[in-house]
């Protein structure tokens, strides 16, 4: 499930973006997060799980409760909106390099 660990894919979903906004203001339990949504609790849990897997959320055990808080370092990756543009060109240039390495001039 590598797909899930990409931060940009993680924030593609509006519910997950809403969760991040919620948790940005205070650390919250899964239950407290879910109470903010009309969506079924297991669905919200899955969103939280995905956000945790891609390290946008961090878990913290406090007594019997697990609290979630935002991982600011990972959020920085998103805040830098140049990254997808850079990635696009990097992919293209990698391909260019590969194409030209195999290039045989027409004689």
């Amino acid at each position, binding site marked *: 499930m590598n797909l899930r660990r990409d931060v940009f894919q993680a924030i593609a979903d509006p519910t997950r973006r809403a969760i991040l906004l919620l948790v940005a203001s205070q650390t919250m339990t899964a239950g407290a997060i879910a109470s903010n949504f009309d969506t079924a609790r297991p669905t919200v849990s899955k969103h939280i799980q995905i956000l945790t897997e891609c390290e946008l959320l961090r878990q913290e055990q406090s007594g019997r409760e697990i609290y979630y808080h935002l991982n600011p370092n990972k959020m920085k990756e998103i805040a830098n909106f140049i990254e997808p543009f*850079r990635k696009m060109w990097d992919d*293209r240039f990698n391909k260019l390099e590969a194409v030209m390495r195999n290039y045989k001039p027409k004689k």
Partner: protein
Amino acid sequence: MELKTKVIAEDGKQELTITREFDLPVELLFKAHAEPELIEQWMSNPYATSKMLKFEGKKHGSYQQQSTDANRKVVFRANGTFHDFIPNKKITRTFEMENAPLGVQLELLNFEKLTDNTSKLTTHVIYESVAIRDQVLKTPFAPGLSMAHDRMQEIMSKLK
């Protein structure tokens, strides 16, 4: 993983610079920008096939390119004119996306020999305004996001 490509886009400026070093002689790096069949190859990706509808690689020449998705639907078309086309050194060209409100951009591509087998490309792009530059920077994000969103929906529906 560290990306080899660097993008410098200072706040409040209507330009940006893309730099990249290649494990290729400068002649091959230039050729990759000068032959339409080669451009098509490296500009294509699993989601979009690039095609050069017109390509006159010379001063005052022009080009038109288009991208189609897996269903052969045209996702974008762009065109421009070459102002300079100096082998292994420089390409100056304009670029305009058709049917998109992003105006014309001026692109200055500098090709530099580093060693016999390595080279560097510096692309300086100037946009009509700061707002348009920022818009362009965000553009590749949008289709990637919706694609990721579709994939995610697919996965989520299987998990139910």
